[in-house]
């Protein structure tokens, strides 16, 4: 059972209160983007074995979207953070690199 702390209401919410929203920090293409960019936005997603940054919604709760950093292999949660950011805050990156020294946000972004 996955348990994530909602950064908005401070609740330790278990999986059944949450809704998974897929990969975090993707660039949303819009009017003026070319076909390749749109295809990438619509269909390409990283599926790493290990550290992943995801979007989750506290659906049966405050209703807010937030971000979570966790390992897809061990289910270890490195932390959750606000959705109003383009990259993970330093505390999250520190928690990840403490366990995975070679991990970097830039490298993770290039996965998809």
């Amino acid at each position: 059972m996955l348990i994530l702390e909602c950064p908005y209401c401070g609740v330790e919410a278990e999986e059944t209160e949450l809704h998974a929203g897929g990969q975090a920090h993707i660039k949303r293409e819009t009017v003026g983007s070319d076909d390749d960019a749109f295809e990438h936005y619509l269909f390409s997603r990283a599926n790493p074995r290990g550290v992943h940054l995801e979007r989750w919604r506290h659906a049966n709760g405050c209703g807010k979207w937030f971000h979570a950093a966790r390992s897809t292999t061990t289910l270890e949660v490195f932390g959750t953070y606000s959705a109003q950011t383009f990259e993970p805050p330093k505390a999250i990156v520190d928690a990840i690199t403490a366990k995975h020294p070679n991990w970097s946000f830039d490298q993770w972004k290039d996965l998809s």
Partner: protein
Amino acid sequence: MSNAVSALQGARFEGFATITESGLRGMITLRGDLASSAVKSAVKAATGLAVPTQRQFATADEHGVGWMSPDELLLMVPYEKAPEITARLAAALEGEHALVVNVSDARAVFSIEGQSAREVLAKLSPVDVSQESFPEGTLRRTRLAQTAVAFWAKGKNAFELICFRSEAGYVFDVLSMSARKGSEVNFYST
């Protein structure tokens, strides 16, 4: 003018705790910047209460204010006063980035009372409702079996719960089933 009735018109179940549909209740959703002085003074004027802190439910007399999310409050007022209070709040918040809606007829309210009231909710929600983790005045939006609800502790052994009106029948049934005599777990009993 039609005659307003609540979803289950006061339905009641006596188990090891008592489940009661609370009848008509005025409920107003207020969304906006909860830290702004405009919202604070509007809420104070409407209910006599301060904006509650995270996951708290404040009550005084016939009024209540619940913290629903970082930008949402639920105001509980007498049913017949809800339209007028909604209009007053909307007027007070004119020009603010805020929203005030009378949701009284879109919701149902239940009370869960009795020695093992906490157990009725514990069986249905992924929430630690022990006295230590969930003292009086605590509010939680969560899941009750398969539906979204919010509940708060009115007292040591008394809770109030709201759900969507269309789900009132389901909520009453699962609460009643959970409170059925003979199904006590006594997890929280001291």
